[in-house]
């Protein structure tokens, strides 16, 4: 965790951990939107869960009202990615076992995989719509400012002092 020290205050740790997790999650945004590699979306979803865990842990460093508002958006990201991820896993799981089934059993499994793939295409639209909205709301900039305001941690410090622990 960049710049996080064992003797840090809770407030300083809150800023460093939440901002690091936030940036980690957003680093997968373009890959997720491109949709060429299902692991990008998976990594973004896992990062969003880590961010939520960090926000839950450090909730005490932020005012309750604005904390709830920001957490709600992060949760929306997790949930939106979750629906797509579940379908990716389902299709992957079916493809992986298809060869182990008898010939007369395969049409059913192939048809189910095709149904999931069609649903997955719809989920990509939801993901794109969510990120367009967040861009319009300038949520990324506002999120980082909010963390800085309540913890005193400058977002740019995280990249200039990556091995500060």
């Amino acid at each position, binding site marked *: *965790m960049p710049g*996080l*020290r*064992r*003797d*840090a*205050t*809770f*407030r300083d*740790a*809150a800023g460093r*951990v939440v901002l690091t997790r936030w940036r980690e999650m957003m680093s997968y945004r373009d890959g997720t939107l491109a949709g060429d590699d299902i692991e990008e979306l998976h990594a973004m979803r896992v990062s969003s*869960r*880590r961010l939520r*865990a*960090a926000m*839950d*842990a450090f*909730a*005490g*460093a932020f005012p309750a009202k604005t904390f709830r508002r920001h957490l709600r958006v992060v949760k929306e990201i997790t949930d939106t990615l979750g629906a797509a991820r*579940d379908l990716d*896993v*389902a299709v992957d*799981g*079916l493809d992986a*076992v298809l060869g182990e*089934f*008898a010939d*007369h*059993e*395969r*049409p*059913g*499994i*192939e*048809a*189910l995989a095709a149904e999931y793939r069609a649903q997955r295409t719809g989920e990509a639209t939801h993901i794109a719509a969510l990120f367009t909205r967040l861009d319009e709301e300038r949520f990324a900039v506002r999120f980082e400012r909010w963390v800085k305001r309540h913890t005193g941690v400058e977002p740019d410090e995280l990249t200039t002092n990556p091995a500060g*622990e």
Partner: protein
Amino acid sequence: MAKPRAITGLDPDRRLRPNARRILTVRIDEVWAFAPYVTHPGHVRELHDMRIACKRLRYLLEIFEIAFPADLGPFIDQIKDLQDLLGEIHDRDVQVPMLHDHLERLAERDAAAARELMRQTGLTRRVGLARREAAFERFRAQLDDAGTLSERPGIEALLARRTQERDELYDRFLVEWRRLTTERFRRDLERALGI
């Protein structure tokens, strides 16, 4: 999904460790609160909630480990293993009802297709015996053709497999959970955190 319990008594301007200790105390309690329920395979919701509680605890240990002198790595690994097993169980608990629903939809679709076939082959019309028998033979031939392409056998086989996997995964979870209990995992974790 069970919401995390609120943590009281935190002081953001104090050091990380005492605050982390207070948070972890509650999150450890949350995992073990499911102990009375998870020894029954039918407690699907509790198993799922325990997975979420394990995940929260694991992520927090990863965040806070820098604040503690003890090596928390082995504890984190154990909790991750438990969480992964519970995750595999949860996947089956989601998939099995979905496959049952899918089979129901297939049954409805097959029934509608059969009705349409009966209509097309003239079985529903009032005709003479010879024509009715000929129509029935055509109906049966088309139904046999459709049967070879049926989706049901595959879904039924998949359902049987996922159900068996769920049973096996649950047995593995139970062995793992009992081992952690026997080895006093919780006591050791709390000692490492100074709780």
